[in-house]
Every structure is written in structure tokens, then in C-alpha cells.
């Protein structure tokens, strides 16, 4: 009788240890998920790995003071100087065999504000004016539509974040719609979701809605915004090769 009573009585310590074990297992699973999620925030600096496993290319970033007033005219000069720098150095491994030119990718950005008007409302929005292969360097999470590129025929595209899309159109499925700006109509290329990353720190750093437009929109504007960052993905067949090329260029050496 006593033994049966003992058996029927709950083994509390065992239950406690069982619950602890289950909890630990769940924590392991959650930790694994968090680890995976953390990978997303590092895309800004992983282009070189995405491009070439990081072995043959180097990514160089230049941050430019607005007082220097660098515009797309200077970008053309930079590209020419960098290509000339590589040709001067003459290392064959840095050149594409098909074209005989170095495989260079770059991106640049300026910031401004734009007064935009959509079908639903109007808003003044922080704007990133980008050029080159900007979205290759800084892919944002597209919810719909697509990126625009410097190589596109038209330069009147705009990429809205979710909040900007709601403010202007009352919805987010608005790729292809038109936004009015300064008597021009910009075509919504896509909608993206804002996530924290270096792109946020490049701008004002606040949590206001932000949009992307092509810097070529201001090509013929006498008051075009000043470019504040220039990034380069360049061949780096040996250690510090790309850095040496950039440092040898006068226009970069003279930058404060």
C-alpha cells in the first residue's frame, strides 16, 4: 500500500527537469533563427563577397564633404582617373580579357528633399539621389517592382518605402503609378521595406520615410545636390592593389 502511494505521488523534481529541458531546446531553436536574421543586416558590406568571394575584388568607400560640391560631372572624372590608374599600373590580372578594361563597379549618392504628390496626398520626403550600380552595393528589400539603374533609358523612376507609398497613394501596390514633382511625373519603379543598416546612417539617420531617385534626374539642374559618398568595387589581384590605385590618383589624394 505504501509503495503504491509512493508511485501515485508526482515526481516533482523530474517534472521540473523535464520542463527545463524542453525550454532549453526551444531556446536553441530561437537562437538559431536570430542568428540567421542577423545575416540580413550585413548586406551593405558584403558586396565584395557576393561579387567574387572576396578574393579578387576590393570594396572602397569615400565619404565626401558637401562643401566640396561634387556632382555627376566629377564622377565622370573619377571613373576616367580610376581606369587610367589601373592602365598605368598595368597588372594584367586586373583587366577583363574580353574588353581589355578593368572590371569596375561604382555607386554614388547625394541627399536632398523632394515635394512629392501622389493620388492620395502630398509629402516632403528625404530623398537619396543615387547613381552607378547603387542597388548592387546597397540592395534594399523590394516588396514589389524593381530597382532602377543608370543604364536605363529613362531616368524618371522613383523607389518608395512602404510608409511613403501609404502617404502618397494610400497603399503599397503602386509600382507603375506616377508621382508629381516639379511639373514632372516620376514613375514608381518599386516599393521597398526599410531596414536598419548602413544606408540609414548615410542619410539623416532619422526614421522618416525615404525614397530613391536617379541622380540623373538632376543632370541638367544647375542646383544639383552634392554627392556625399562614392563607393568602388575594383579588381584587387594582390593585397592593397585597389587601394594603391585609388591613392595614386591626384583628385582623391587632394580630398580633405
Amino acid at each position, binding site marked *: 500500500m505504501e509503495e503504491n502511494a509512493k508511485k501515485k505521488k508526482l515526481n516533482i*523534481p*523530474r517534472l521540473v*527537469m*523535464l520542463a*527545463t*529541458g*524542453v525550454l*532549453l*531546446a*526551444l531556446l*536553441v*531553436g530561437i537562437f*538559431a*533563427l536570430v542568428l*540567421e536574421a542577423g*545575416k*540580413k543586416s550585413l*548586406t551593405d558590406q*558584403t558586396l565584395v563577397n*557576393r*561579387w*567574387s568571394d572576396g578574393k*579578387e*575584388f576590393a570594396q572602397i568607400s569615400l565619404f565626401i564633404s558637401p562643401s566640396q560640391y561634387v556632382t555627376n560631372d566629377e564622377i565622370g572624372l573619377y571613373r576616367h582617373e580610376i581606369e587610367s590608374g589601373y592602365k598605368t599600373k598595368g597588372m594584367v590580372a586586373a583587366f577583363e580579357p574580353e574588353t581589355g578594361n578593368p*572590371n569596375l563597379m561604382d555607386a554614388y549618392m547625394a541627399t536632398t528633399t523632394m515635394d512629392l504628390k501622389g493620388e492620395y496626398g502630398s509629402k516632403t520626403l528625404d530623398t537619396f539621389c543615387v547613381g552607378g*550600380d547603387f542597388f*548592387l552595393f546597397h*540592395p534594399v*528589400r*523590394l*516588396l*514589389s*517592382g*524593381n*530597382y532602377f539603374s543608370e543604364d*536605363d*533609358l*529613362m531616368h*524618371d*523612376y522613383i523607389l518608395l518605402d512602404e510608409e511613403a507609398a501609404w502617404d502618397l497613394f494610400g497603399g503599397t501596390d503602386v*509600382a*507603375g503609378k*506616377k508621382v508629381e514633382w516639379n*511639373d*514632372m*511625373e516620376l*514613375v514608381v*519603379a*518599386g516599393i521597398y521595406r526599410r531596414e536598419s543598416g548602413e544606408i540609414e546612417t548615410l542619410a539623416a539617420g532619422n526614421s522618416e520615410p525615404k525614397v530613391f531617385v536617379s541622380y540623373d534626374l538632376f543632370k*541638367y539642374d544647375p542646383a544639383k545636390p552634392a554627392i556625399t559618398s562614392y563607393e568602388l568595387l575594383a579588381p584587387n589581384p594582390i593585397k592593397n592593389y585597389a587601394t594603391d590605385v585609388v591613392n595614386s590618383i591626384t583628385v582623391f589624394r587632394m580630398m580633405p
Partner: protein
Amino acid sequence: MSEETTKVIKNEEEGKSRKREWIKNIAIIFLAVMLVLTFFSNTIMNYSLPQVSTEAVTSGNIKNQVRGKGTIELIDPYNVTVNETRTISSVHVQEGDLVEVGDVIFSLKGEESEELEEARTELKNAETEYLKNILAGNYTPNAGTDVDLASIQKSLATLDAAIQNAENNVVYHENLKAEYERQLKALGEYNNDTSELSKQVAAAQLDVDNKQTAVDNLKTQYKNIYGGDIDEKYIALTEAYNAAVEAGNTPTDEEKMGYDYTKALDNLAKANKTLAEKKYNLEIAGYNTDPNATKKKELNTAITNEEYQILIWEKAQKDAEDNRSEYVKEMTGKIDAAAASEKITALQEKIAKLEKDALGSEITAPVAGKIVSVSKVAGESTEPKETVCVIQMEGKGYRTTISVESKQASTVRVGDEVTIEDYFYYGVTANLVAIQPDKEDPKNKKTLVFDLNGEDLVPGGQISLAVGDMNSYYNLTVPKSALRQDNKGDYILILESKSVPFGTRYLAKRVDVTQIYATDDFSAAIEANVEPWGVYVITNATRPLKVGEQVRLAEEAK
């Protein structure tokens, strides 16, 4: 067995029992954990996979368009202008009305314009002024073509030369006279001062000469007018003149001339007599004994002659100056008269033109077409050369232009299909008719010229157009967001599915893109080793994907 031994054995058995209890517990916990992980492993793994959205690869058209916004303009608008200042009394048309040639657009107050009235008043004033100046002798009428600057300058030069010549001679003779007087003075004073007498002789001589000139002039004048010698007739003419005067009749011009000639001869005789007296007085004065009398007499004679010459040349100088003044006055009169005459002629022509072009009481449509704008209302006044109305002529439509980059312009051709992007221009069509260099930036830009046709077009309005080649069909088209790039070139990631127990696994498979033919806003036509049906391409992902990486569909996550 002792109690202690029994106790020890019992303790040993309890110890073994507790150890077995711990091992059992650990085993149970381990199995429970494995069970939990086994049940949730798939869920955990799924949540760690990147989510992707996909679209089917397809085939279709790529609309490679150039877009822009332009201002609607009329092609060759007809601006109805007026050249008069008139007051509008009523407006008979409004925007959008169709008019034919001759249809009344505006009614005007009065018959004549302000400009015509003013011109008539100005002409009257000019004619009055002209007549006044002729009466006052300021103008020389019928100047004809006498007013010639070259001839005036030539005449003035001649007159000035005569003045200068006379002046020079005056100076010359004054200098001679001074020399003679100096010589006379050097001979010493003598009581007998005859200079005054010499002057009197010279003056008398001059008078004689003037009187003689008057006689000669009358003689010449008579000969020119009546022929013959007046010397033979003047006596008779004088008698006839006196008889007429005594009878109270008006003598004839010839008789008067004869009388004047008689008087002139009398005057001449008197002057000669006076001269003789003066000479005698002078001569007598010279009879006084003076050792230098002869010399002095000669010098006095010479002085007298010089004084005479001085008087002659001073008169000649005065006559030349008077001639010049008369000439200037005459020429001024001719010039002023010519100018006044031209002004009057111009005013007459202006009035004739105004009368010819007078609007009358209405402004009518000079061409047929549609009224596009009316810029006046009743009660307003028109200004000369002001546009009061714009008519879109029949057969002429609307036009707009868009400035684009040269690179964009190179993708379109005249005749390409044009799309109106504004929904409210229903029924409006457009055609690309020309591609021209941009006037402001001919190096980098071009102007696309479009002809517009439709009912709802309003000049000055904005219209959005897109033009481009929309007839290009491609076998393989993907969303632009599916195109990716790395150092090996362009590629797309397609969704590869594999059936596994309890479900399907999806993998991102790389397919190289060998060529991108064309892109538009959202699609791209490519060449790749993939079938244009049944294949799904990855467009977006929650994070960058690696080739071959397992993914999950966005719908599955929901």
C-alpha cells in the same frame, strides 16, 4: 544478521536506487528534448530560410518607351489684330465657337479710330502752319528740288569768299592809308589841315558813284523790261508821269520808271556838283605855301583815294554780307517749306491708309476656324497691333514638343506609335512628326515634335506622352527585378523544386543570361538557357541568395 548490517545493506540498496532514478530522469529529459527538437526542427529550419517571391518566365512585348510632358500649342494660329484704338461695344463669339470668313467677332463703337481723328487734326495744323509761314515770307513755296546741300554749300562758299575778299581789301586800303598818313605826319604839321576836306571829297565822290550806279541800274532795268534806251525817252515819260499825277490818274510803270530816271539824273548832277565844290575847296587849301605842299598834296590825294577805296570795299563787304543773309534766309525758307510740304504729304498718305484700313463698326473673322481665345470684353479699348482674338484655322491642329536626351531620342523614329498617358484626354491621338536638335542644348538633347488631334485639347495645357517601339516581341521576358549580376556576368535565379518526404524543397538555381535585348519599366527581354513556360524566376528575397541555396516561398510562410 545484525541490525547494523541490515541497515548498511538497506542504505546501499537505497543509494543504488537513487542513482538509477537520476539516470532514468536524465534519459527521459534527453528523449524529451530530442522529441521536441525533432518535432520543431522543420519549423525552425523553415523560419531560417530566406523567403522569395517569384514570377513566371514568359514571352511578350517590351515597351521601350521615351516619356515626357509637353505644353499644347496651336499649329499656325491666326492672331486677329487691330491697328486702331477702338472701343468694343459687344463680343459676338466665345472660345470654342466655329466661325466662317466674314463672321462678326466684335462690334465697335463709332466709325473712326482715334488714330484717324488725330491724323486729320495734325494735318490741318500742318497746313495752317505752312500757309502762315508762306504769308510771313518765311517759306519759299514750290521749292522743288532746289534744296540741295551741295549747291547750298557751294553758294555759301562763294558768298563767304566775296565777304572775305571785301574785308581783305578794306584792311589793305586801311593799311595803305595809314602808311600815307604816317608819311604825311612825318612831313610835319602845317597849319593847313586838309584831311577833313579830303574826306569830304571822298564822300562826295562815293555819293556820285552811288548815284551813277542808280542811274545805270534804272537804265538797264528799262532796257530789260521795255527794250530801247531810256535816255531817249525819259523826258517824255516824265512829262507823262506828271500829267497823270496832276490828272489824278495812276501812272504806268514805264512812266514811273521814266520819272525815277529823271530824279536819278538830278541826283547825280547834284552829287557831281557837290563833288566839284569839295574838290575846289581842297584845291584852294592846297595853294598855301608849304615846302612840302606838293608832297603833301600828293599824299593827301593818295589818302583820299584810299579812303574812297575803303568806303567802296566796306560797302562791298556790307553788300556781300547782306547777300549772304538773304541767301541763307531764302534757302532756310526753301528747306522749311520742303519739310513742311513733306510732312503734309506724309499725313495725307497716312490718313488715306487709315481710311482704307478702317475697321468700320465691326471686326470680322478673316479666316474660318475655331475661336481659341478672346482677349477683350465689351467696354474695353483695343491698342494698335494688339491681338484681340486667336483662331485655330480649319485643317490646322495642335502640337506639343518634348525635350529628351540624345540617347533617348536615338531609340525612337518618326512615325513610332505614341501613347497619351493622361486618362482625361479621351479620344486624343498623337503622332511623332519630327526629331529636331534642342535649341537650348543641341549637343546633348533633342526635341521630339508631336502633332495632336482631338476635341479636348486646350492650348497651354499639359499633356504626357510616351513614344517608342511597342511592336517588339521577345520569346523570353522576365521581370527586371529578376536580373542579377556578379563578376561572371548577368544571371537569373530560377526556382527548382524537389519533392521530399512531408513536402517540397525549393532551391535557387542560377541560369546565366547571355544577352539582354531590351528593357522597359518593369520587364527585360533576355536570352538564357531556360524554357519560356513553366519556369519561375526569383524576383525578390528577404536577403541575398546564394546559388543552390534552399529557399521558401513567401506564400508558404504565410
